[in-house]
């Protein structure tokens, strides 16, 4: 049953060193405010799962929060590399990290299987591709009716899911709209979930009967953080800060400028700082 909390309380209560977590959002609604709070609280030893690690994991990895990353596309979308991830993986700075690499289809199916309470996901995947050679978590199963071979990967099972959404209501239900990615699946595949939202309303009001909603009894903690998805975006609130994504390439390219950026924009700030980005709404 969802409780409304401050962000620091929510992270404190729900995330422990060594946890397996996902901070999801497929380009849209990426929970950056939660990522920054995790950095401020100096969590260590996390296994970070995300289809597209994006800047949020580049920041966490650069600050030494992770020991392993499970992913399917590890770049800065439309820009280039994730320099902090590469520095950790290739050079061990600030610490070595292990990777487990999948395709998007595999991870999307693995989230789906986690939400569905299945131990694994199956799909027509990896045919003629080399990843199964280097990832022991990709196996084959055979259709018992046709004999067709399919790929199998373990279901995603999380200690904590972090997502950002447009709205929560007073009962603790959460509404997502637009590119909804795998966020619903991540929350349903998790023991605990922290949902930051743009606003908390009395009632969602008129809406499609088929709206994408996470009901209150599937959510652990709700935190109001307007702008909390910046530099990602919130459909209906503010747009993606594509210019910042490009700037990140320079910021993250070397260790000093990265550390300076984190110090200024994360360590010396709190979740309220995100409100400035919400105000740029279009």
């Amino acid at each position, binding site marked *: 049953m969802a409780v409304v909390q401050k962000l620091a309380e929510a992270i404190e209560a729900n995330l422990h060193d060594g946890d397996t977590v996902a901070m999801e959002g497929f380009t849209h609604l990426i929970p950056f405010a939660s990522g920054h709070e995790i950095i401020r609280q100096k969590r260590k030893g996390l296994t970070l799962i995300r289809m597209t690690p994006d800047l949020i994991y580049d920041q966490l990895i650069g600050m030494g929060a992770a020991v392993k990353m499970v992913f399917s596309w590890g770049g800065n979308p439309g820009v280039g590399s994730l320099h902090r991830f590469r520095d950790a993986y290739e050079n061990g700075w600030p610490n070595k990290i292990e990777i487990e690499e999948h395709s998007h289809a595999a991870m999307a199916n693995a989230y789906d299987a986690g939400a569905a309470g299945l131990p694994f996901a199956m799909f027509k995947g990896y045919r*003629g591709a080399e990843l199964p050679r280097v990832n022991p978590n990709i196996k084959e199963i055979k259709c018992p009716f046709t004999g067709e071979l399919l790929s199998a990967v373990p279901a995603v099972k999380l200690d904590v899911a972090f997502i950002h959404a447009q709205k929560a209501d007073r009962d603790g239900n959460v509404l997502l709209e637009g590119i909804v990615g795998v966020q619903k699946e991540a929350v349903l595949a998790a023991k605990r979930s922290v949902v930051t939202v743009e606003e908390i309303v009395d009632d969602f009001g008129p809406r499609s009967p088929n709206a994408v909603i996470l009901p209150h009894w599937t959510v652990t903690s709700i935190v109001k953080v307007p702008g909390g998805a910046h530099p990602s975006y919130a459909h209906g609130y503010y747009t993606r800060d594509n210019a910042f994504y490009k700037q990140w390439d320079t910021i993250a390219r070397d260790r000093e400028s990265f550390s300076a950026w984190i110090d200024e924009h994360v360590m010396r700030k709190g979740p309220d700082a995100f409100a400035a980005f919400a105000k740029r709404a279009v």
Partner: protein
Amino acid sequence: MSANYSPSEMMTIAAARALKNDDVCFVGIGAPSAACNLARLTHAQDIVLIYESGTIDTKPNVLPLSIGDGELCETALFTVSVPEMFRYWLQGGRITTGFLGGAQIDKFANLNTTVVGSYEKPKVRLPGGGGAPEIATSCGQIFITMNHSKRAFVEKLDFITSLGHGKGGDDRKKYGVTTAGPTKVITDLCVLEPDPKTKEMMVASLHPGVTREQVIEATGWAIKFFDKIAEMPPPTDKELKVLRELHARTKAAHGEAA
């Protein structure tokens, strides 16, 4: 016709021309996105564009920087979850043409976007496959767009991220794959198509002013040419105008957002 255009514009325009009005395309970011939207804004106005973020039948006014920019969702007929995208739409066989690119390609149009060097100790750790492994096998056919260079067009891939024609011939069938695979590789120099039997990618047409020697020089294997090579018509004024306006709108939108 305009003589002032870049090889990269020619590549995008050649890719756009290969698309048909009734195609349903799985679009990637970069050149594929420009090509698909150029086709939509010129000869193929009913073309259906799908981005893996879940946006279906989208008509963006500016090109997205990421695969999930808000523009894609706002102009889409509808948007589904990412599991549904990969399960019902891609794996379900609902896409006619998928676009791919990569850091390395071999003569059978297998692609590498994973690592340069060994997987365990890479010289360069690339972003990885993303949707590519299943796009490569689930779409009716694959178009590949890449800049033509010896570093990219290699004899042997460091890693096979996604299947093209495998080792050639009907190798795809061995993996239970029934789709056509790469039918065109569109570069800034030329267009390659598979030999009907061996499935080796061979030069089918040259862009205006490009010589065979240039292509041979830019390819890391002994590239073959079809007996009859067409010359790709240069960009029309309209194609260039629409493409440049699209890029200008995009640049303005992405810059302003800061």
